[in-house]
């Protein structure tokens, strides 16, 4: 009897719940030692699918409770729970080397990339997985044999240009971002943080001091007066200011200013006595409750939204004064969700965008991903099947399996043979990248935050320019070293001790991930504010057309794949969390657009309802045998089915 060790990484949110039990059940012929890492605690909304947990477990560590649950039906296996973040430095390459296989069900791109790199460094096979609603996938990654998790660049979380949010929203999601990241943050968050709330489209001066004072609550100001004043300022005055700039509105629908007195003529007196003596239950204050609005799925009219806005603001200031100045938006904070919903709706009304219910707004603001028990059960089963193949080293049988919502060629599960490693993958093939940047304007800090951390997914980077160490992170640094690095962060690239100008090369490393990347710097003066808001463009991480390992069709199941064209079925990577959702496609009722197939017959596929209408993500037609080359064979490819 061979002792096989399995490492189970991640999150019981969805998959590992089933995964653990399946593994426990199936591995009866192996003495199984499992470790599990999960930093989450159990929440009520988990209970519709994470069946190892009960109501009584809410608040406890997922890793621990899951382990206890499994031991109950498999008492003799060894499971060690770690209630920790997988990015902790203890989980280093040596730690990973202990295991025969890693099973990953994490819910964010960053952590997944981190794990991918560790698996590559430790040379341990990785079985990756994810689900969203009815969709899911399981993929196998073995160094040298298959693509690594990052060979196909994953879609970056959607962000919106600042001016769209501050001045020219055209979709409800823009209003939500405004309400959450600007207004809510301004009123209830850290006052010292930069805030673009008062920025107008062509206003060069960002937060001017005078403008900020408007948001301060006056000494003896009546709280409802304060609320109305804020309302009038952001929905009335600010809009009027924006309208005065004719240029902006030449080709756009003009917003209309909304003033409180027009919507809600009378000051709201205490209604139905509900909130008069609510001093006992401070933490559960709710504007909806005190206004008698019962159903979160209702779409409130402008007047109701206005009432909620003012009432919520009131409740924050009367019942939760201490928190103000430190609050950040939390989707489980009902009052915060109510406020953001109301504010977003009023702004939407102003810009002639359809209003949404609290339920919808909450989903958008909280980046909530829909989830159900069945998909997770299916994917869990698939994970185990792949894990068994990996443990048996049955390389020819490894498959990437995609779980679809609607059958394609009469199949709900699409197995695809893994592709060979991408020769231009900067992670597993160590190809160098190029960066266009203004070396006289951008600071090292910008480079570290936007490129090294955000795009390259490094956590503890080390940056070198030839032999000069420009920046590093570590526990064992001396004070003067830290001071030196901090000083470097503030300098523009061309003025660093070892000047970084066009034509030079930077080497960026993350020691924990054992990942090194060389970046060629190209100087560029100007960047488009809307299309390149970061002011820098990273390239070179392209998707090579992967060669299939051999020309045979996959699996003989009828999921035929063409010899020369790379194909991925209907939906490829589905991350269970994306930082900003695109276009509010969360709700069940939302529909996506049908686009044209080049020869005139409409094709069933979903593409983003995108302003640029640039999406020609033409895919395999369900009933046709021919496959079509995708227009954009780049990082956009894998967001064929972009899900919230």
């Amino acid at each position: 009897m061979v002792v096989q060790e399995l490492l189970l990484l991640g999150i019981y949110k969805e998959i590992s719940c089933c995964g653990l039990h399946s593994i426990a059940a199936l591995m009866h012929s192996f003495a199984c030692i499992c470790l599990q890492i999960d930093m989450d605690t159990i929440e009520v909304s988990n209970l519709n699918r994470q069946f190892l947990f009960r109501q009584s477990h809410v608040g406890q560590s997922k890793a621990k409770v899951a382990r206890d649950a499994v031991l109950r039906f498999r008492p003799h296996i060894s499971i060690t729970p770690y209630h920790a973040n997988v990015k902790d430095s203890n989980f280093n390459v040596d730690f990973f080397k202990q295991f025969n296989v890693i099973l990953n069900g994490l819910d964010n791109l960053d952590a997944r990339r981190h794990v991918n790199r560790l698996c590559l460094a430790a040379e341990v096979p990785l079985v990756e997985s994810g689900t969203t609603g009815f969709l899911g996938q399981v993929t196998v990654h073995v160094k040298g044999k298959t693509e690594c998790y990052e060979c196909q660049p994953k879609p970056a979380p959607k962000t919106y240009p600042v001016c769209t949010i501050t001045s020219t929203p055209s979709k409800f999601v823009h209003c939500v971002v405004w309400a959450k990241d600007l207004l809510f943050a301004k009123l209830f968050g850290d006052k010292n943080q930069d805030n673009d709330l008062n920025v107008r489209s062509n206003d060069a001066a960002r937060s001017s001091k005078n403008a900020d004072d408007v948001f301060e609550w006056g000494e003896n100001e009546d709280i409802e007066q304060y609320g109305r004043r804020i309302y009038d300022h952001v929905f009335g005055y600010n809009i009027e200011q924006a309208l005065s700039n004719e240029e902006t509105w030449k080709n756009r629908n003009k917003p209309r200013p909304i003033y409180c007195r027009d919507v809600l003529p009378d000051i709201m007196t205490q209604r139905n006595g509900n909130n008069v003596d609510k001093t006992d239950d401070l933490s559960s204050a709710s504007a909806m409750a005190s206004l008698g609005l019962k159903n979160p799925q209702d779409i409130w009219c402008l007047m109701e939204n206005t009432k909620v806005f003012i009432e919520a603001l009131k409740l924050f200031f009367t019942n939760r004064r201490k928190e103000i100045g430190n609050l950040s938006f939390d989707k489980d904070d009902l009052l915060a969700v109510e406020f953001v919903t109301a504010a977003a709706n009023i702004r939407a009304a102003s810009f002639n965008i359809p209003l949404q219910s609290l339920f919808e707004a909450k989903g958008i603001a909280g980046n909530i991903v829909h989830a159900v028990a069945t998909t997770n059960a299916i994917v869990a089963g698939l994970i185990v099947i792949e894990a068994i193949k990996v443990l048996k080293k049955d390389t020819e049988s490894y498959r990437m399996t995609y779980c679809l919502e609607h059958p394609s060629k009469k199949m709900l599960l699409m197995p695809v043979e893994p592709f060979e490693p991408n020769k231009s993958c900067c992670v597993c093939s160590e190809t160098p990248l190029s960066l266009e940047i203004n070396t006289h304007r951008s600071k090292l800090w910008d480079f570290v935050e936007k490129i090294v951390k955000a795009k390259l997914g490094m956590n503890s980077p080390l940056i070198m320019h030839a032999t000069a160490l420009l920046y590093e992170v570590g526990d064992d640094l001396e004070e003067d070293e830290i001071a030196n690095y901090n000083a470097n962060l503030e300098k523009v690239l061309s003025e660093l001790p070892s000047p970084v100008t066009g034509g030079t090369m930077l080497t960026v490393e993350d020691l924990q991930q054992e990942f090194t990347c060389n970046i060629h710097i190209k100087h560029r003066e100007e960047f488009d504010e809307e299309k390149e808001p970061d002011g820098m463009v990273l390239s070179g991480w392209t998707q090579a057309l992967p060669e299939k390992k051999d020309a045979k069709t996959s699996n003989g199941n009828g999921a035929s794949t063409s010899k020369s064209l790379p194909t991925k079925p209907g939906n490829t990577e589905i991350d269970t969390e994306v930082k900003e959702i695109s276009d509010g496609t969360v709700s069940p009722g939302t529909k996506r657009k049908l686009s044209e197939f080049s020869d005139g017959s409409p094709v069933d596929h979903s593409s983003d309802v995108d302003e640029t209408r640039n999406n020609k993500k033409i895919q395999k037609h369900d009933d046709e045998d021919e496959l079509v080359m995708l227009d954009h064979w780049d990082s956009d490819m894998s967001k064929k089915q972009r899900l919230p």
Partner: protein
Amino acid sequence: MAEPKTKYDRQLRIWGEQGQTALEKASICLLNCGPTGSETLKNLVLGGVGSITVIDGSKVELGDLGNNFMVDESCVGQSKAKCVCTFLQELNDAVKAKFIEEYPEALVDSNPSFFSQFTLVVATQLAEDSMMKLDKICREANVLLIFARSYGLTGFVRNSVKEHAVIESKPDHFLDDLRLNNPWSELKRFAESIDLKVPDPVAHKHTPYVVILVKMAEEWAKAHGGALPSTRDEKKEFKELLKAGMVAMDEDNYKEAIEASFKVFAPRGISSDLQQIIHDSCSEVDSNSSDFWVMVAALKEFIVNEGGGEAPLEGFNTRYDIFN
């Protein structure tokens, strides 16, 4: 719903209130609670199904412990139905859970009317002859039936359901239907009010693509005896005509028109599927007819009268931007 059901929040975002209500009204009967049946029911229970009744005559044996996590050592020797039911009840106390310790085959033979009380029967690991009998029983009683069997890494699932109507199917894709191949009178008039060849370049590039298509389609029809482009060559020619209408390279409205030109190529009138439905005998409705057929009857009348051979336009409330 009176208060936010936080527990179901994530799945409500998939199937909405309607779906959740349907689930909560359903009563399920499970025949045989081995791994397949238990796993199936588990997912329904987690989702908040109304009630479940587990029917299994066997006792828990040691061999069951390795493949069904709803039973543990303490269950050995007890009724499997009872143990599984207890476990499932723990998963969601909002679900009404019952069990009957009896072999499903026997029940099928002795008490067929038993099944009429359920919305759905899930029959697992049944032998063929029992399946056939059960199928007949359920059809007559108008009960939905799903069969499942699994063997190692293979298995099958089979539905046995009579004709049923799905209203509000929430399709993933929709064609924003402006009926450009047969525009309604107000749209026609609107298009007529606009001159495609307007001299001002700004106005020219702001003509809505819908108007461009309506007008160009009309011109084409005039030149082709009332017909719209239908062959590959004609469609190509039409697109070329659109292109020729551009006066500058950056005219997005013309590009949009070209991209959307397929809307003009769509054949007029209703599809053959729709024809079949409205001419079905069920569309002659009476007081017994289901909601679905009543709606079909109304649709039929519309098509014949106001519609002039076309179905009503699909309504959407966010497409104001088309007329920007």
